[in-house]
């Protein structure tokens, strides 16, 4: 009889490898794409430092940039998974809006901190579940299913708020957004963003879930014929995106001290843009959490530099568009030469 050829674990270590220093792999893997993003970020830091040395090169400003990037950053981590699997989630902004208003109704606020956190996450997961079921088991195209979710979640958010701003009264929530709660200078929002990023990186790169995500995005038919449950994987992915939206909604509640149906406006585009300039393939099969986070930081830093220099939103938008085009062009160039 044939045995699986996997040798006993001990023997794998003896397989001679092309021995290279440990850092070599890191550099090779932190490929040119990532390095070019770091280069862009470094260039932005230089520009910020030259134009506004006092305001830009300042701990408070670093805290500000990271805090402002936290909400969209968490959403982008979820989006990166979805895009890596060959899908798209257009409903992230709407889910953030719905979760943030549901979690800040007077009824929910009575349950205080826990109620608000629980509701945010639950609403996010609920929307993700609907997306996932429609796409994985209902056979709907992700673009359409999540577009429908975008419309309905926004509508429901409006219905809940009646267009009113729901102000949060819970002190324990509000405190988390204030300086007193910084730990060693790190705002709690940034800590959540960092934890989500690290977990996201580990899950995508070190777990079967991440591997299956890449397989489904790279070649869904091959994944299916290799025995992967492609549909269940898709369901989980949209659930994950919904979960990230729920967490982001909670962060946004802390940040803005309120819930409003207009929250999360155009997050879907910001998250997709950050993931794409980060190096995640829109067609699926390759995703990078590090790249996505760098993409978010680049956008947030641009906004910061422009605001510090008192440039107006029209100029900011033009610059944002130019950065997306430039980043993608640079990547195409580097991708074709390697």
């Amino acid at each position, binding site marked *: 009889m044939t045995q699986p050829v996997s040798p006993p674990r001990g023997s794998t270590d003896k397989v001679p490898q092309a021995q290279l220093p440990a850092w070599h792999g890191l550099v090779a893997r932190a490929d040119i794409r990532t390095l070019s993003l770091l280069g862009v970020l470094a260039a932005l830091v230089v520009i910020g430092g030259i134009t506004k040395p006092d305001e830009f090169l300042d701990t408070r400003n670093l805290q500000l940039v990271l805090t402002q990037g936290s909400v969209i950053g968490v959403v982008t981590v979820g989006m990166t998974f979805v895009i890596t699997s060959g899908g798209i989630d257009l409903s992230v902004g709407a889910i953030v809006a719905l979760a943030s208003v549901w979690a800040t109704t007077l009824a929910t606020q009575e349950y205080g901190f826990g109620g608000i956190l629980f509701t945010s996450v639950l609403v996010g997961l609920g929307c993700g579940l609907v997306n996932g079921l429609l796409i994985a088991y209902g056979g709907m195209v992700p673009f359409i299913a999540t577009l429908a979710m975008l419309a309905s979640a926004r509508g429901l958010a409006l219905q809940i708020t009646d267009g009113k701003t729901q102000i949060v009264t819970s002190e324990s929530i509000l405190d988390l957004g204030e300086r007193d709660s910084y730990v060693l200078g790190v705002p709690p929002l940034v800590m959540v963003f960092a934890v989500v990023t690290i977990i996201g990186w580990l899950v995508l790169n070190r777990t079967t879930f991440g591997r299956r995500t890449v397989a489904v995005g790279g070649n869904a038919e091959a994944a299916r014929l290799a025995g992967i449950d492609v549909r269940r994987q898709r369901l989980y992915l949209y659930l994950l995106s919904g979960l990230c939206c729920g967490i982001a909604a909670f962060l946004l509640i802390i940040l803005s001290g309120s819930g409003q149906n207009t929250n*999360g*406006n155009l997050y879907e585009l910001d998250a997709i843009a950050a993931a794409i300039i980060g190096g995640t393939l829109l067609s699926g099969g390759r995703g990078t959490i590090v790249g996505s986070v760098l993409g978010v930081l680049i956008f947030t830093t641009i906004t910061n530099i422009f*605001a*510090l220099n008192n440039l107006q939103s029209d100029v900011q938008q033009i610059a944002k568009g130019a950065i997306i085009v430039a980043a993608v062009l640079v990547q195409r160039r580097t991708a074709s030469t390697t």
Partner: protein
Amino acid sequence: MPEPMRFPSRFASRRGLLLGTAAVSAGALLTGCTSNGPKDEEPAADTRPAADDKPGKQVTIGFAGPQADHGWLNAINDNAKNRAEKYSDVTLEITEGSNDTAQQIGQIETLINKKVDVLVVLPADGKALTQVGLQAMRAGIPVVNLDRIFNTPQAYRCWIGGDNYGMGLSAGHYIGEKLKGKSDARVIELAGLDNLELTKQRTQGFDDALKNYPNIKKVARQAADFTVESGQAKMAQLLQAQSKFDALWNHDDDQGVGALRAIEQAGRDDFMMVGGAGALSAFQAIKQDNGVLKATVLYPPTMAASAIDLARALGQSKGVGGLAEYEIPASITLYSAVVDKENVDQYMSTGFR
């Protein structure tokens, strides 16, 4: 003249020009909602009748507005409804609010076909709905155009709305007076959505007012987009950019919730802030007077209640009490009063959520 003319009178006369035939205080006389006559103890919009509150001829008023996706628009609907309920001789036909031009046209056409006596229209887009306004006027239904103005005066019998330029003026003058005598005073502006004409007008009014105060310099301006989230984000950046300034004007109290949050998070209290529009939360903060928010300039949603009054008067072919004319005016621009600690109590009931 009632008390609110606290700025030099040349501005009042400018307003008079703006209004054409209508007197500066027409709106105030009509409804009381925007005036703040100090002797008037009653809260504004809800209780004071218009021209004449004796029951008269039955009037059916059709009301079409945009989707209430913002606190201010929601307040518009509430004001219209509550006002109509006050009158036993008024029946209000109110449509489901819509931001879709085609849908709103359809709704208004339905109201025309139902042969309502008077129409009150707050168009989602004033230019795009001009035609249907003309249509109603030709069908003999007088139109009260609320706030977002049609392309041509032929499309309405009476326009009533707020004054965005005036908001900027009021805010600028209030800040100017408060900072009088302070040399090298620095002011920043948190504007609304830059895509909108009204944001430009507000900024223009603000800048024009500040020109009267050579000691003041506007050092920064960033545009948010009327949402709490954007207010917080942009204000946070402004605070980082400007380590020292004396006053802030924020165009909109909704985004002001976010702006206040950012100010609180940055731990700043070394300046005064003036808001815009007139949200309840802003009024409450002004009354408590324990933060930076010291005043807000009105863009009163009570205009919807006044529009109902005007529509009723039109339906009953009556003039406006307190004015010499037999007819109601063709155009009424509301005054952007400044609400601060002194007078906030009387506005409290008009604040929207």
